[in-house]
């Protein structure tokens, strides 16, 4: 996806597994709400029955639409799994699209418990069920595993050769993830770049960390 400003955005479509988990969480929440309402409203006689039917309808048909439109494309289950509903071009989902994709659940539910939806989602390149195809929406991963830079603080080393941004990013990524790697693996990776570090082993690792610090603008 590319914006008019020429910025490339990566939409990471979410597959059937996380979506099924999100649905299960939503379903459990909705079931709990309906259950509690049923207990309270059962004591109110016919009026309670009427209210109960309204609650039932709202919980199963209005809940997803309200949450998707008003809560940034996330129902509670999707929030728990780090998913979000967006339009196919990455813009926030609107009322029409959300209503369409949720009404289309009646098709995806067929013949039993989302059988069609599952098969469609498994077969589609973007893991869309029929509702998503009709409404032109996508379910994507929101959370970015990249946190804030946690590269270890070492004295910055100026780079001997100017490097383009992508290669700088690789060295910063090495520094950020160095803590997860064994020392042997760190040295193995650092030894791949003798031209840059002019050293081998632990010294090379330190040089790379220093380079990363200079790329990050630390002094």
């Amino acid at each position, binding site marked *: 996806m590319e914006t008019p400003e020429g910025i490339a955005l990566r939409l990471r479509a979410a*597959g059937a597994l996380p979506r099924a988990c999100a649905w299960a969480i939503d379903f459990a929440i909705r079931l709990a709400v309906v259950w509690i309402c049923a207990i309270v409203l059962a004591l109110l*006689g016919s*009026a309670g029955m009427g209210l109960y039917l309204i609650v039932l309808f709202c919980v199963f048909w209005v809940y997803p639409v309200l949450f998707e439109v008003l809560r940034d494309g996330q129902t509670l289950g999707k929030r728990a799994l780090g998913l979000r509903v967006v339009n196919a071009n990455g813009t926030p989902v609107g009322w029409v699209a959300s209503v369409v994709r949720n009404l289309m659940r009646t098709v995806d539910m067929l013949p039993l418990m989302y059988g069609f939806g599952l098969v469609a989602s498994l077969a589609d390149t973007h893991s869309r069920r029929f509702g998503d195809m009709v409404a032109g929406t996508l379910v994507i991963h929101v959370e970015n595993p*990249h946190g804030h830079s946690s590269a270890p603080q070492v004295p910055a080393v100026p780079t001997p050769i100017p490097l383009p941004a992508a290669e700088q990013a690789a060295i910063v*990524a090495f520094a950020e993830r160095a803590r997860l790697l064994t020392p042997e693996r760190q040295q193995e990776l650092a030894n791949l770049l003798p031209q840059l570090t002019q050293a081998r082993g632990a010294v090379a690792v330190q040089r790379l960390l220093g380079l990363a610090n200079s790329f990050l603008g630390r002094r």
Partner: protein
Amino acid sequence: MRVEGLTVALRPRSSWEATDLGFALVRRHAGTIWRSWVLVTLPVFLLLNLAGALLDLVGLAVLVFWWLKPVFDRVPLFILSRAVFGAAPSVAETVRAQASWGWRSMLPWLTWRRLHPARGLVLPVDLLEGLKGPRRSERVRVLQRAASGTSALTTLVAVNMETMLSFSIVALAVMFVPIEFLSVASKAVWEDLLLDMPLWARLLQNLCYWIAMSVIEPFFVGAGFGLYLNRRTQLEAWDVELAFRRLAARLAGTVPLLVLAAGLLLATALPGPLRAAEAETAKETPEQQDKVGGVAAETVEEDTAGAAPDSLQRIFAGEYYEGDAEFRAAVDKAYADPDLSPKTTVTTWERIAPPDPSEPFKPVSPSLQWIQTVGQGMAFVAENILWVLVAVLLVLIVRYHRLWLSWVGDRFERERQPDPLQEHAIALPDRLPDDLPGAVRTLWRQGQQRAALALLYRAAVLRLDERLGTPAPPGATESECLRRARRLGEDAYAGLFARIVRCWQAAAYARRLPSAAELENLLTAWTEARTEARSVVA
């Protein structure tokens, strides 16, 4: 292993994204995976079911098939693990490799590790790394540290998907039953298929399970492999290695010889000699025990039409002849003939007695009686609120029908005729009478109120002309005259003139005549102004 050969875009992913990567890989190599899958699993499935049918253990056949899942998992795993490094095997290679590849670790996976919750993640460790003993457990622990939860959830979800899908296939068949036959069909299915399942139905059920499993299992293996790949990417920073290698190659400015060497290595690592196919035929048992037989004999109950001997005996009294056994048999046979006593089935809809609405809702216990009262109160309030809403809506519709229901409004407007014009001929005297108030009063008393006011207005305009010293322009309207009156400034007549004009306008345009007292006020003011003016002139 050559990281340079990777065909997937590596980057640190969350665990769920890693499962999606696995799904995408399965989709990418779908043709090879499912063709090999069917070639490997279908013969095993058929053999197991054949054996099950012969031994009357069809349920066990599907259980054994399910238990053998780790063996079948090797098919997608073999393809994916090679395809990821750009060397996707063909169907023939895959099927051939199943005879030899990965059997060493199958014993634990078919016994104590069969129900391992994170099978998708750990199976690739055994099959692709081939570690043993404490090194293996260490390795598995490291890999599982951040991904075992997702892997276990994946297993759980996959089990549910598989079950759901196999039920879905059955439900799909039901969907094609026309709705008018649905109750008959479901009754037949329940009585003939579910209560006492015939053999073919049980085999069909197994087939449904095989289809569902064939759809889900490769994806499950793919998800596990994606998790494994992601975990190794995290632990060993493969994406960083890849970027470093490219950077080094650029800096060195030469093509690395490594690629060539690795290519040679790959050529020697092709699968070994072909081994004999699995000895599955051993399971076949020649002796055919006919346990399936014993078809329940259907007892056909004869339809004996009930004759009524009592009535015949009563009618014929002493002359009644009973007839011998042979005759009775013949009679019974004749009655049994469908032509003589035809039966028709008539289906009619009968109204079920509706539940008595007067019967009050029973609360759970008498101590909760108040809740029922509260509920009835709420129902009463809600009902009346609804009626109020209806009334408000009606009022709004009537009030704004022009705006909301313009098409209705138009129709009404068209039907409504404009009020008839009232024309009054005004007899214009050539000159004003000397006693103007008298003339006005006379006209008023004669019932010609409009004419009286017209006369007064005319006189007032003429006097305005006198005061200003200029004649009014022809066809000047009332408001133009009022504007001219403003030129008088502080003169008292300006106020009187305005009052006369207002009075005239109200009468002429709105048919609002002044009361007699108001007119008298005006006339008195008129006479006073006249005498004042005279005295000023004098």
